[in-house]
C-alpha cells in the first residue's frame, strides 16, 4: 500500500460524496428522516385510544367510568345502546367497547358478582392486546378502591403488581431510536458502499483505475475509510438526536457505544464490498443490498419485532443477520447500561462476521476485469 495513492483515492472519494446528491441523500437526509419518523411519528404504544362506553347512570357505574376518563390511554365516548357502540366499532370510530349492564349498580352492591363486558377490535392484534390490558388495569384499580372504601365487601382477586425495569414508562421510542442506529449504519455501510463501487464499474472508471499502478488493497481501503467515517457521523447524528431531541436515556458508556458501532460498521462495509464484487451495476447491487442487508436489519434484528416470539426456523435464521447482534448491544447499552455478558457475546458475533465479509471481499476482488 502506498500513501500517495491511498490519500489520492480517499480525497477523491470524499469529493464525490460531497458533490453527489444521491450519496448525501442516503448518508444524511435518509437517516434524518428515519430518526424523525421513528422518534416522533411511529410509536408502538397505544395512547388516547377511542373507547366506547355503554353504561347506566348509577353512581357506581359513573365512578368506574371516571377511571377511564382520567386515564391518559383512553379517549372515551358515551353511547346510549350497545348496538350503536357496535356500529361505531365496525366503522373504526372506536377501538374498543366497555359495556356495563343496566343492573350494574344493583349487582355490585348486592351479591358483588357484577361483571363488565369488554370488546376489542382484533384487526390489529398487537393493539388489541394492549387495549384489553389497559382496560383490565382501570377495572382492577376501581375494584381495589371500592373494596377499600367499603371494607372488603367485594372479593378482590389475587393482586398482581407489575414492575417494569429499565424503561419504566414503557416508551417505545426508548428502544426504537437506538435500534435505528443499526438501520442507518446498514444504509451507509452496505447500500451506499455497494452503490458507489458498482457505479465505478458502470462508468468505466474502475477499468481506468486498474490500469494504473494502484493495488486492489489501495482501492478497497479507499472505499472503507470514507464510508466508515460517514457511518460514524451517522451514529453521532443519531446519538445527538436521541439525547437532545427525544430524550432517550443512555445508561451505558459512550465509548462502548462507539466501539461496538465501529465494529458493526466494518461488518456492513464488508457486506457492501462483497455485493459490489458480485454485482457490477448499480441497479442489481442496490436490489441485493436492500434484500440481503437492509430488510433483514429492519425485520429480523429485534429492532421492531420481538425475536423470541418468532417461529423456531426463523429464529434460527436471525442468527445470520449481523444487525441482530448490534441491535442487542444497542438496546442494552442505551436501556440497561454496560452489561458485559450481553455486550461481549454479541460483539463476538460481530467480530466473526466482520472477518468473514471483509476477508471474502478481499479474496474475491482481483485487479482484473474477468
Amino acid at each position, binding site marked *: 500500500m*502506498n500513501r*500517495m*495513492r491511498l*490519500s*489520492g*483515492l480517499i*480525497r*477523491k472519494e470524499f*469529493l*464525490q460524496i460531497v*458533490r*453527489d446528491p444521491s450519496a448525501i441523500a442516503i448518508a444524511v437526509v435518509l437517516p434524518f428522516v428515519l430518526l424523525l419518523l421513528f422518534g416522533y411519528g411511529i410509536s408502538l404504544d397505544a395512547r388516547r385510544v377511542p373507547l366506547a362506553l355503554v353504561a347506566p347512570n348509577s353512581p357506581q357505574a359513573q365512578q368506574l367510568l371516571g377511571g377511564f376518563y382520567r386515564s391518559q390511554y383512553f379517549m372515551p365516548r358515551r353511547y346510549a345502546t350497545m348496538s350503536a357502540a357496535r356500529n361505531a366499532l365496525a366503522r373504526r370510530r372506536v377501538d374498543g367497547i366497555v359495556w356495563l349492564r343496566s343492573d350494574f349498580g344493583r349487582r355490585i352492591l348486592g351479591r358483588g358478582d357484577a361483571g363488565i363486558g369488554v370488546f376489542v377490535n382484533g384487526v390489529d392484534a398487537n393493539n388489541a392486546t394492549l387495549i384489553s390490558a389497559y382496560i383490565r388495569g382501570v377495572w382492577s384499580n376501581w375494584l381495589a378502591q371500592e373494596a377499600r372504601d367499603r371494607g372488603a365487601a367485594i372479593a378482590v382477586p389475587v393482586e398482581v403488581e407489575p414492575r417494569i425495569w429499565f424503561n419504566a414508562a414503557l416508551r417505545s421510542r426508548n428502544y426504537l431510536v437506538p435500534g435505528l442506529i443499526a438501520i442507518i449504519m446498514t444504509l451507509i455501510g452496505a447500500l451506499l458502499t455497494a452503490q458507489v463501487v458498482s457505479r465505478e464499474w458502470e*462508468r*468505466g*472508471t474502475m*477499468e*481506468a*483505475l*486498474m*490500469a*494504473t*499502478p*494502484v493495488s486492489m488493497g489501495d482501492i478497497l481501503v479507499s472505499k472503507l475509510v470514507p464510508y466508515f467515517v460517514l457511518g460514524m457521523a451517522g451514529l453521532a447524528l443519531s446519538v445527538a438526536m436521541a439525547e437532545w431531541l427525544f430524550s432517550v436515556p443512555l445508561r451505558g458508556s459512550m465509548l462502548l457505544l462507539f466501539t461496538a458501532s465501529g465494529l458493526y460498521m466494518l461488518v456492513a462495509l464488508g457486506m457492501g464490498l462483497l455485493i459490489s464484487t458480485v454485482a457490477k451495476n448499480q441497479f442489481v447491487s442496490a436490489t441485493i443490498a436492500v434484500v440481503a442487508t437492509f430488510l433483514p436489519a429492519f425485520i429480523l434484528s429485534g429492532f421492531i419485532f420481538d425475536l423470541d416470539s418468532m417461529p423456531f426456523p426463523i429464529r434460527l435464521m436471525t442468527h445470520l443477520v449481523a444487525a441482530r447482534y448490534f441491535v442487542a448491544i444497542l438496546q442494552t447499552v442505551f436501556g440497561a447500561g454496560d452489561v458485559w455478558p450481553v455486550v461481549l457475546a454479541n460483539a463476538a458475533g460481530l467480530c466473526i462476521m466482520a472477518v468473514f465479509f471483509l476477508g471474502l471481499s478481499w479474496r474475491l476482488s482481483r*485487479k*482484473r*476485469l*474477468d
Partner: protein
Amino acid sequence: MAVSALTFDGVEKRFPAGGGRIVEALGGLSLAIGTGVITALLGPDGAGKTTLMRLAAGLLRPDAGKVAVFGHDTMLEPGAVAETIGYMPQRFGLYEELTVRQNLDLYADLQGLAPAVRRARFDDLLALTALGPFWSRRASALSGGMKQKLGLACALLRTPRLLLLDEPTVGVDPISRRELWAIIDRLAREGTTVLMSTAYLDEAERCHDLIVLDEGRLLGRGDPVSFRTPLAGRTFLVRDTKGEPRRLQQELAHRPGVVDAQLHGGEIRVLLADGASPGSQQGEAWDAVQPRVEDAFVALLLSRRTHWRQDTVRSGSASTGVRLSPGVLITARNLRRSFGSFEAVKGISFDVSRSEVFGLLGANGAGKTTAFRMLCGLLPPTSGELSVAGANMSHAGRAARQRIGYVSQRFALYGDLSVAQNLRFFAGAYGLRGAQLAARLRWAEEEFGLGPYRASNAGTLSVGHKQRLALACALLHEPQILFLDEPTSGVDPLVRREFWARINTLAHEGVTIMVTTHFMEEAEYCDRLVLMSQGEVLAAGTPSEVRALARVSGGPEPTMEDAFIALVAGHEQSTRRAS
C-alpha cells in the same frame, strides 16, 4: 534484438456468452509491436479489438499464451506493466464530479508522480491539450472532445512508454479529432509507442503499422503501403456526366467485377476485383486513383465474407407501399428551442422534399439532436413554424408521428425478444392487424433478410443485423419519412456500406430520409444537407455546393471534412469577435 513494446504469444481468450455458450474473442494470436511507432488496430465490430487492448493493459488474463509489455509478463509482473503503460479506455475513465484539476491530481497520485515535478507536467499537458481555461470546471460539464483530451492527459501524466488508446476518436467531431491526432503525433516523435484501435480508416493512413483483426484472428499486418500496393490499378474515381452520382453509385455497386463503390466528393470511388477491367459505360468518366487503406480493408474482409453480397440489399425489389407525390414534406421556419436561458437551436429554416435523403451535420453540441427531436415530435419548439408530413408539429404532433418512422442511436430493440417477436410488437404498437399485419411482417423478413434469424433473440444479433431489424421495425407502418439518429456511430465500414445501400433503395422507393451523422464522408450520400454549429445553420445545399464553400483558389478540391472544419472554425471566430 531490441525488446518489443508489446508481444502477444499464442494468446487465446474466451468469454461465456450466456446460455452456456462460449465466445472466442481471440484465437491463438501472436504478434509483436516495435518501439516508437504508431500502430493502428483495425477490424469490424466483434473482431476482438477491445479484448486485445485490455489484455495488453493486464486487465484480462489470457486463457492460453502470454502477453508481455517491454518484456514484462502482464500476469507475472503486473506492477511493472502498470508503470510502463498509459491506458485510455473507451469511456475515458474520468470522474464526472471532479474538476479537470482534481482528475489530474488523482491520476498523478495513482501513478506516483512526484509533487516536485507535478506542476511542470500539468502545465505541459494543459498546453498540449488546450484545457487550461477549463482547469476548475467539472468533467461532467466538458464537451465530448474535451473529455477525450482530459482522459488522454490523465493517461499521459507519467509519460508512458506504451500508450494504449481504445477507439479514442469515436463520437468525436472532426475538429477534435484533428487536435487529438496532433497530440498523438507529437508523443510518437518524442518516443512513445502508441497502439490505438479505430473505426476510422482514414486514421489508419497516418499510422506506421497496421493490424487487421477479424473474429479474433490476425487477418493482415504491415505498413499502409504494403496494404495499398496490391490494389494498384484497381481503384478509380468515376464521374457521372449526367449528374446523378447516387444512382450511378448504386448501379456500379451491383456491376460484375466491382468489389466496392462509394460516393466520394460527388464522384464514385470504385474498387475492381483482381483482374477485372474498368468497363466504362456511356455517361461515365473513369480516372485511375491511388488505392487507400480503406480499399484494402474492405477487400480483405469481403474475401472472408463470401455470403455478404448475397444477403445485402436488392435494389427496388419490393415496394414499401408509399404513395408517391412530389412536393415539400418538411418545412421548418425560424425554428427555436431554449432550455432555460440556453438557446440550443437559434432559429433555423429549411425544407425537405419528398424522397430526398436530407442530412443534419454538426459537431458535438451543435444542436442537431435538439433539432432532430423537434422534427420527430419528441420535443415542442419554443417558437417558429414546423410542419412534418402535412401536420403542424406545434399542435398535431400525434398525427405526424403515425407518418414517421424513427430509429434511435441505440436501436431501441427488445434484446430478450426474438426477431419475430420484436417485429410483431412494433407492428402492434403502430396498430397493424389482420391481412395487412401478415403482409408487412412477411415484407420485413424478406426485404431485410431476417428470415433465418426470426427465432434468435435480438440481443444476440450482430450490429449489422440489429440495424436491419431496427430499420424493419421503423418501416412496418409504411411511414412517409424515416428519421435516423447517428445510425452509423461506432459501426464498422462493412455495416456502414450495407446501411447506405439500403437507405438509397428506400429513398428510391419514395421514402424521405432525415439523417444525422458526424461521419463527414457519409454526408455525400445525402441529396441535400444543412451544417449546424452552435445552434445555427452555417451552410445548406447539395454536398457539392457545401464543399464549394471551402474551395480555395489554386488549392485541391476540398473534402466534406475540410469544408466542415473551415466553416465551423470561421463561424466560431466570427462569433467570438462579435461578443
